[in-house]
């Protein structure tokens, strides 16, 4: 779901908040929404949304469903759905997404690749259900 600018001030209950005042480094791998308000370096991988707040600095590659940038990102961004760079946002890296929106004032220094919608659909292994017949059951019990 697309977010408006006001959402950046109050991202609805993100599972992960990387706040100000501390230095966070490393690999972040999670399953929910992530909001970065402070400084982070490393890598962020989630199947939820990622919001880089207005005063945030992220020195990391980011992978998520939708990625909203109001602060600064040094690294590549991969979004399954949309990347939205707001007027205060700055991305120094390559971006890959199904949709890209850059507001006036927003900066992208890097290449942009549009993901094919089909590519975004996860591959599912075919599964087969075989109904067990009475003769199969008999064979099994015989073998025991």
């Amino acid at each position, binding site marked *: 779901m697309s977010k408006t600018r006001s959402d950046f001030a109050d991202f609805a209950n*993100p*599972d*992960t*908040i*990387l*706040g*100000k*005042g*501390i*230095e*966070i*480094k*490393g*690999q*972040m*791998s*999670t*399953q*929910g929404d992530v909001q970065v*308000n*402070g400084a982070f370096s*490393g890598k962020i991988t989630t199947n939820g949304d990622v919001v880089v707040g207005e005063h945030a600095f992220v020195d990391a590659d980011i992978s998520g469903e939708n990625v909203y940038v109001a602060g600064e990102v040094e690294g590549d961004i991969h979004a399954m759905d949309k990347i939205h760079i707001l007027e205060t946002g700055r991305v120094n890296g390559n971006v890959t997404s199904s949709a890209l929106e850059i507001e006036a004032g927003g900066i992208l220094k890097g290449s942009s690749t549009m993901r094919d919608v089909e590519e975004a659909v996860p591959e599912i292994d075919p599964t087969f259900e075989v109904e067990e017949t009475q003769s199969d059951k008999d064979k099994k019990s015989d073998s025991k």
Partner: protein
Amino acid sequence: MYLFLVNPEAGGKKFSKIEKRFVGLLDKLKIKHKIVMIENLADIPQILDENVNTRTEGVAIVGGNATVNAVINAVVSENTPIAIVPLSKTNHLATSLGIHRWEQALSAIANPNLIDVRLGKVGSHYFIGSAEIASHQNIIEKYLNKSNPLMKFLGIRQSVPSTQMAVDMDITLDQQMTIKGPVHGIRVDLVSDKDKKLRVEILAHDDNKVAKTVIMADELEAESEKKMPVVIGNETITHTPVEIKGVSKHIKLISPAPKKEDKKTKK
């Protein structure tokens, strides 16, 4: 039948003083029981092996923190209900369940309310619910703010702690992430429905404000410039450096009946 494992040394050898009343109440509440004295905590696995059988309805741990930790470590089956009967003042797991006196614990066994809980570990101590790491000053300030009736009456919010009250910390999560900086406190909550077992909330100091960081993790290691107490309930369990883990083990704990009945007994 309930197997009562009693630590006779707990609470200043309290059991010997209350034994008659204890057994009297068990009989009055019609709790079938077998009481085994623990001479040495290391014997607990053997005691359980010899005494727990198909007729055992549950294991009641009578003692303090050390006894509780030793028994939980030894109880292999997650289906054996465990009751905690506090004898000493240091029994934070009993406190977390709302059990403050041994009589309350026996009443809970007579009318068991089983709860399935995920356990956490602070060092060697098991805990349920949450644990907190905070500087002494912050704990005192929090207590004063909470208990000050004038502030409550005037609706004054808790003041922002000063920079001096923040302690430089070095935190590692899941051996994958490091967090450094001035921290007022850390709260760790056990969560049962997430892929990660702990919800770690770090309150850092930024520009005269408290900035919150929330991260899900399985384990946390924390070191600090000054020693910081690790508190469970109202009890200081240990100090930093500390390791806190969410344990995969679930146990069935016997807790008191729901609140309504609690209120009645208070009256």
